[in-house]
């Protein structure tokens, strides 16, 4: 009887054990609800060079490495720490890289044909899988090699981050050189996103301001004081041909392109007070958007084309407001701090990059459009002119230190700050250009 009971007990027990999903039967299940947010470890091995004699024209791996590091999302391995320097897949000893925690490896070769053309072969490898993630053979030319390197960085970025890289893009900015005779030289320039390959688009002894890329990256709108009064121009980047857009009495400033490139929002004071207007570029017709006794300026166009954000002191101090591109009642977006100005929409329109001023300290901040929450990204005393990268992952801005005003870039979360090396002078008002489709 007892044994029967015991047997039943055992039977029940075994059923219970059988049913127990944890220890017996089913797989162990673990939910990973957290993670780390670190720069991805990656190793970029110096590319092989087909010509035994002579050095390669550029260091492709260094360009890729710098691009990835500047993004703040990668932690490229220092060259001296590389355990091996393979150029071929067959040479790679994955275990060596695994031991070092390197998740990804970039290897490649630069070749030059008899005709002088270049070709860049590269492979992005998954160290833990021991497999190639992506590999390309990219034809290039001597003047295009840097760009090819940026394009490789873009591919790596997209494969490992999931968002298109913005390394093979251009930036525009204004430089100021103060001559010894007291005269000034302003230039409108464009350059690669890493600051290399600068190209002067315009030179003027009078101030140049507010460059803005057309959505197709072919034109730049800007403000010039060359005629003593502020004038808005649109200039073709390739041909240098330009068009005067607005030269009304008073203020003509802060041009902003509509996402379709057909219209330009500007600040005009032709009606007595600085207000936001929208001009149809083909018809040159103007539409007034704001109507307020306070100053309304620095418009930015949302990427969906619906909204205009601008700076207004109608609430007392400068704050960010938003209004429908077709007009209407503006809505205040910023409430933190006494001074928020010069808004720029993120590519997904969820955020606005602004200059946040507190106690005369100018910093770059990002405001969440929905919640209004403000996140300060920079630490310097005078950081201005934020501009989103086209993938929204970085913001380029100016920072003023003992060396003058320089370009700097920060990741959108503020975790990484890099200064962009530019050769001469004071650099102002950078504008990050759009993706340029091949």
């Amino acid at each position, binding site marked *: 009887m007892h044994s029967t009971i015991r047997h039943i007990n*055992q039977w029940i*027990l075994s059923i219970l054990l059988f049913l127990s999903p944890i220890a017996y039967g089913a797989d*162990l299940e673990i*939910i990973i*609800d*957290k993670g780390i947010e670190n720069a991805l470890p990656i190793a970029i091995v110096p590319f092989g060079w087909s010509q035994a004699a002579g050095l390669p024209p550029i260091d492709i791996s260094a360009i890729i490495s710098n691009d990835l590091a500047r993004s703040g999302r990668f932690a490229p391995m220092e060259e001296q720490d590389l355990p091996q320097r393979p150029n071929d897949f067959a040479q790679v000893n994955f275990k060596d890289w695994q031991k070092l925690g390197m998740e990804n490896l970039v290897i490649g070769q630069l070749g030059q044909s008899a005709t002088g053309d270049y070709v860049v072969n590269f492979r992005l490898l998954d160290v833990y899988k021991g497999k190639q993630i992506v590999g390309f053979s990219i034809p290039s030319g001597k003047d295009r090699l840097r760009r090819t390197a940026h394009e490789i960085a873009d591919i790596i970025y997209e494969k490992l981050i999931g968002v298109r890289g913005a390394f093979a893009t251009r930036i525009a900015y204004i430089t100021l050189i103060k001559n010894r005779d007291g005269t000034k030289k302003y230039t409108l320039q464009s350059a690669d996103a890493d600051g290399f390959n600068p190209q002067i688009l315009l030179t003027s002894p009078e101030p140049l301001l507010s460059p803005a890329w057309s959505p197709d990256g072919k034109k730049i709108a800007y403000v010039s004081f060359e005629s003593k009064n502020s004038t808005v121009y649109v200039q073709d980047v390739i041909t240098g041909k330009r068009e005067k857009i607005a030269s009304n009495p008073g203020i003509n400033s802060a041009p902003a392109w509509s996402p379709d490139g057909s219209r330009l929002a500007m600040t005009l004071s032709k009606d007595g007070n600085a207000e936001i207007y929208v001009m149809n570029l083909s018809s040159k017709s103007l539409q007034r958007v704001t109507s307020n006794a306070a100053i309304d300026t620095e418009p930015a166009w949302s990427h969906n084309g619906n909204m205009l954000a601008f700076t207004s002191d109608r609430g007392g101090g400068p704050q960010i407001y938003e209004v429908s591109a077709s007009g209407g009642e503006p809505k205040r977006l910023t409430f933190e701090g006494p001074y928020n100005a010069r808004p720029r929409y993120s590519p997904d329109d969820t955020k606005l990059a602004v200059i946040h001023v507190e106690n005369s300290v100018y910093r770059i901040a990002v405001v969440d459009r929905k919640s209004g929450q403000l996140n300060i990204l920079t630490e310097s005393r005078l950081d201005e002119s934020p501009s989103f990268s086209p993938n929204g992952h970085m913001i380029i801005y100016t920072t003023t230190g003992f060396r003058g005003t320089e370009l700097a870039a920060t990741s959108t979360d503020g975790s990484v700050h890099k200064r962009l090396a530019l050769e001469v002078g004071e650099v102002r008002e950078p504008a990050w250009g759009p993706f340029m489709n091949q």
Partner: protein
Amino acid sequence: MELGWFVKSRSAFYAVLLHIIAAALLIISLDLAPKPINQPKQNINIVNAVTVDKKQVEKELQRLKNEEQQKEETGKKRLAELEKKQKEAEKKLAGAEKKHLEEEKKAADAKKKKELEQEKRELDEQKLAKLEKEKEELEQKHKIEEENKRKAEEEEKKHKAEDDRIRKEKELQQQLAAEEAEIQSGQDVQLIDRIKANIYRSVVNNFNKSGLPTGLSCILRVQLIPGGEVTNVTLVESSGNSVFDQRAVTAVNKASPLPVPDDIETFERLNLRQIQFQFKPEE
């Protein structure tokens, strides 16, 4: 049978003995009568004296004859008496003998009885002894049987005890095993929680969600070998974002070997060869 013959022969012996005794007694009684042996001598003397006168002789003869007759008669008488006496004696003897015989017989009977009794007793005793012996033997036998039986029973008991012991032991072992399994399962639950926590930490520390969109989730099936080395990672359910999936796979691969118990037995018991991971980072 043997006894019958013995008793008969003894009876014959007693009969003979009795007649001898009777004859002896007769001779003694004749001797006790007036001396018949002297008479013939006297007679011879007389005869010599009477021979001279015939008449006298005759007379003598007559007288002698008478005498003789008388004598004869007396003798006869005396014989009769004697006979009577003898008869009496005989009678007496017979009575005595009878008595004696009776006594003898009685004695013999008694003796016989005694003997019989003795015999019987002896016999009984023998019988008894025999019985005793038999009894003893029987008892011995019984005892042996008993002993055997006891032994057998004991053996059986022993066997049964052994069987019982084994059975009980078995049951105990089963019970213990069950209890152990229960305890084990209880411990295993704790152990599993610990292992899960360790693996969780290990994978979380390698899951780089930097720059990934929020709200994504993917499921991986991961094959392990003892020691925790990851041998295979299968994407069971994609997040729809290949980079997210890839980061999850890398997290597991980078965490390899996963922190599992070194003990292979435990590894197998806890079924750690396959683990399912759901990557579902909170915002």
